[in-house]
């Protein structure tokens, strides 16, 4: 497998593995059963209503009572998170990211335990996402081009510059797979004068057998790594290695 370069100050703010699935064995106790299997590594548990509904209960009108409750299981330092609902399973890694092999192992273990908890009839979609945040110092075309090899091309005389942009690219790959790329300028925030969120997403929009997940993950990671490598300029990459 291709070795990925580790930067001193990587721009990755989150890695996300996501699985949309169908199951007939989900019940309200499922998050608790899953939690009992992972609580050593993910001791913090919270639950939020993912759906939206209105119910009249003993305490009056209650909202947010949809049946897509999302359970979050977090590590001690809140940097590793598993999210679980009746049709969505995610494994999220916030900084500090310890490299692909470590993250892949985390995903595969979490998926194995999911399969031992419920009967998954079908995976509808699988995806791997890398969310990066870079400081381009000023939201201008010139600075954007200094960081990225992908940029908007506007006709002369119409627009010469920008102070805000959102770009989405979606490219079809064989086997119903898609590489999606997004650039979004964000508001100024502490430590970022002119942040740009740079998202890479590789997904398969059809069913996949469990035995194929690891192979799919390696390929997805390779696609994301290749896209990152081609899109981010050499000058910007050198900045990731500055102290």
């Amino acid at each position, binding site marked *: 497998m291709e070795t990925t370069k580790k930067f001193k100050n990587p721009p990755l703010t*989150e890695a996300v593995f996501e699985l949309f699935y169908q199951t007939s064995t989900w019940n309200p106790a499922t998050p608790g059963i899953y939690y009992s299997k992972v609580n050593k590594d993910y001791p913090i548990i919270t639950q939020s209503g993912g759906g939206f509904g209105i119910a009249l209960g003993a305490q009056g009108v209650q909202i947010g009572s949809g049946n897509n409750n999302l359970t979050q299981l977090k590590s001690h330092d809140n940097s590793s998170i598993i999210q679980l609902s009746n049709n969505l399973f995610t494994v999220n890694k916030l900084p500090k990211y310890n490299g692909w092999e470590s993250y892949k192992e985390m995903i595969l273990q979490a998926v194995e335990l999911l399969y031992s908890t419920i009967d998954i009839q079908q995976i509808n979609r699988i995806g791997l996402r890398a969310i990066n945040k870079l400081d381009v110092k000023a939201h201008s075309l010139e600075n954007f081009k200094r960081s990225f090899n992908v940029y908007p091309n506007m006709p002369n005389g119409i627009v010469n510059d920008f102070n805000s942009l959102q770009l989405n690219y979606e490219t079809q790959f064989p086997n119903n797979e898609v590489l999606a790329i997004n650039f979004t300028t964000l508001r100024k925030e502490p430590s970022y004068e002119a942040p740009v969120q740079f998202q890479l*997403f590789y997904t398969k929009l059809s069913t996949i057998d469990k035995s194929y997940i690891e192979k799919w993950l390696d390929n997805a990671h390779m696609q994301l790594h290749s896209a990152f490598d081609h899109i981010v300029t050499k000058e910007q990459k050198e900045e990731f290695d500055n102290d």
Partner: protein
Amino acid sequence: MINSIYTKQGQSSSLLDEDYTNDKLAAVVEEEVPVSILDSGYLSSIELKREKIRREYAQLFQFTDRTREVDFISTNNDLNKILPSIGEFFKKEVSKGSMMSLELMEEENDWKTLFINIPIRSGADWSGINEIVDSFYDNMFDLFPTVMEKLNIDLVSHEF
């Protein structure tokens, strides 16, 4: 649909986003239907959820911390559904357009309360403001008890 607005005006640093907050009622009741494959990221990503909340509340509140209040809102869906409307109400009726702030306070037994800090201009009609806030508490506790038990209103005298 709300999601199409995200798609067209989704960038947080964009002035276009201000139009989004004007449509507060739609933001509360409309379902979100992704129109791009990237939009589903709000379901799975912690960071994208945070950015979405920061963007949605940018015209109403400042966050005291970069992630604490945002994560609390993100994991309390019932609160997130009506907080924009509450913010619009107080911005119009009490703070008179001044920026409010959100501050999460952690008490014993892991109990968390989100404070809405509302700046009150000097010379403001305090009795009228207290009447509005008292009435708000009475009505909202009856309608949304599970939301209101997570909220507190703090009126802050502010010299402008």
